[in-house]
């Protein structure tokens, strides 16, 4: 309950602190992170190919928005569908292997989609991205107004959070957690483990797809990066830094990540270097995420005060 109040407060305050576009980006990235966290945090599957679903959904929905002037909700539906479908295809191949193979497969298939997007320039624009994606008006709501769009994004985020909470607390969520804790035992109890992993993949893909469409409409463009492995890595980073064990971890991570990348990208054109350094530092010194770093900071302070 306290977490929900905090989230509501930050949704209201955020557009006053940062530009509405960045505020929207934070919640979009949080939706993306929620999808990954179902795999990483709840099922114990480290997917390094989440941008496959994010990017595919953004491209398909963006294309339809641009050329067929579909309405916003239909675009979102398409995005969720494409995200889920691409996750079904990728997941089908990946869930048959485990451990390191699994990680490498998610990455390799991510590369497959990336190179298709890279070369299919007539549709995707290749390296230049797919520009000119509109945010059409719907039922009198003018989504071109950044604040209206922000409100739209944050309500969809709340909806996603609610759905994800229902999912992880449902019997399905418990089975996924059982798989994370002990795959053999889950299998022995009679659950079809690959089937459930695939289901987690598809649900995670649907969330990624939703985030992808919102992202495309936010910036009016689908950049090639949206389907690249860098994006997949970013969302893993955001989820881990927030703490993958909890439902709210990816939300904190999304805040930290977008803030980090926004502030670094204005500092230096080669900011991914700084981002890489941040990754390394986090891994070496702050494993366990923001929550643990916070606790460690307090215990360090109180020990100082005692001395």
């Amino acid at each position: 309950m306290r977490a929900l109040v905090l989230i509501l407060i930050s949704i209201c305050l955020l557009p006053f602190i940062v530009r509405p576009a960045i505020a929207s980006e934070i919640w979009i990235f949080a939706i993306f992170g929620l999808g990954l966290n179902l795999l990483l945090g709840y099922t114990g599957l480290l997917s390094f190919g989440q941008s496959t679903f994010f990017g595919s959904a953004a491209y398909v929905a963006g294309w339809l928005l641009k050329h067929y002037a579909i309405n916003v909700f239909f675009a979102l539906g398409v995005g969720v569908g494409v995200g889920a479908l691409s996750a079904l295809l990728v997941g089908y191949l990946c869930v048959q292997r485990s451990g390191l193979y699994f990680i490498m497969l998610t990455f390799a298939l991510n590369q497959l989609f990336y190179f298709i997007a890279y070369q299919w320039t007539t549709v995707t624009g290749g390296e230049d991205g797919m520009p000119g994606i509109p945010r059409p008006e719907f039922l009198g709501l003018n989504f071109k107004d950044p604040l209206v769009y922000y409100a739209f994004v944050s309500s969809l985020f709340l909806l996603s959070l609610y759905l994800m909470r229902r999912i992880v607390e449902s019997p399905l969520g418990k089975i996924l957690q059982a798989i994370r804790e002990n795959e053999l035992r889950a299998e022995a109890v009679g659950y079809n483990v690959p089937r459930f992993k695939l289901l987690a993949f598809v649900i995670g893909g649907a969330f990624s797809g939703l985030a992808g469409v919102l992202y495309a409409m936010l910036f009016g463009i689908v950049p090639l990066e949206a389907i690249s492995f860098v994006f997949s890595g970013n969302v893993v980073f955001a989820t881990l830094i927030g703490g993958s064990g909890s439902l709210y971890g990816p939300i904190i991570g999304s805040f930290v990540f977008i803030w980090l990348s926004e502030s670094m990208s204005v500092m230096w054109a080669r900011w991914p270097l700084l981002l890489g350094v941040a990754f390394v530092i986090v891994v070496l010194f702050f494993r366990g995420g923001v929550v643990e770093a916070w606790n460690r900071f307090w215990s360090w302070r109180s020990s100082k005060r005692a001395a």
Partner: protein
Amino acid sequence: MLYALMGLGLSLITGVLNIPNFAHGALFAVGAYFLVSLVNFAGNFWLGLLVAPLGVALLGLLIEYAGIRRLYAAGHDYQLLFTFGLALILNELIIVIWGPVGISQLPPAILRGGVDLGFTFYPKYRLFVMLMAGLLVLLTWLFLEKTKYGAIMRAGIENKEMVSLLGIDIHRLFTVAFALGAFLAGIAGALTAPIRGLSPGMGVDMLGIAFVVVALGGLGNLLGAIAAGLLIGVAQAVVAAYWTEASTAVIFAVMALVLLVRPQGMFGIR
């Protein structure tokens, strides 16, 4: 054959250390850039070809010793994040030092031009690369199969606890394996430089290919790496002849197809 070399190095690192090494592509790129700098500095291609991979191996040694060593107890997620961070750092450093624009590198004078093979005309340098890569794969195979340390390394892939119980310094084994894998990546990069030229994106492209080789061939499986390397190399060449744009995507498509038929990889290991 180059793909086999890359896959082999990655396969060693992944197999022995049990970590996902996302920096493998970056090490490949660093090898290529080292070569160019050495050639420009010393004016000797052969010296560059010798020293550049050693430099990469040294870099690998450093990475393992200062970073990865502390992460064996952590999960794959953190190991992945670490090597991914390293890849970003190395990639950006390449842009900072050598610039974002591609560089071309000529093969040494003696290997310029082509040879008439009777049925086709083939560039000399490519022939040399094939021979070198074949030789290196063979040497690695001899090392792994015929020397005592190679046997220990293979044992390390099979069962780390047992090796360590037998009184072998497993940490040193890890360091050596990582340095060796880095060396192979570095020399593959250095050999590639005159064929394809250099660009900061070369590492990432190669990383995906190396993963495909390992996913198909199996971890620590030498024959698998060679077979998978040849398979995707040939597939790529054939497709490139008819449909150039798809030549990179086809690598991953072939992998998907093989896995569809044989989810356990070509040689059915795990």
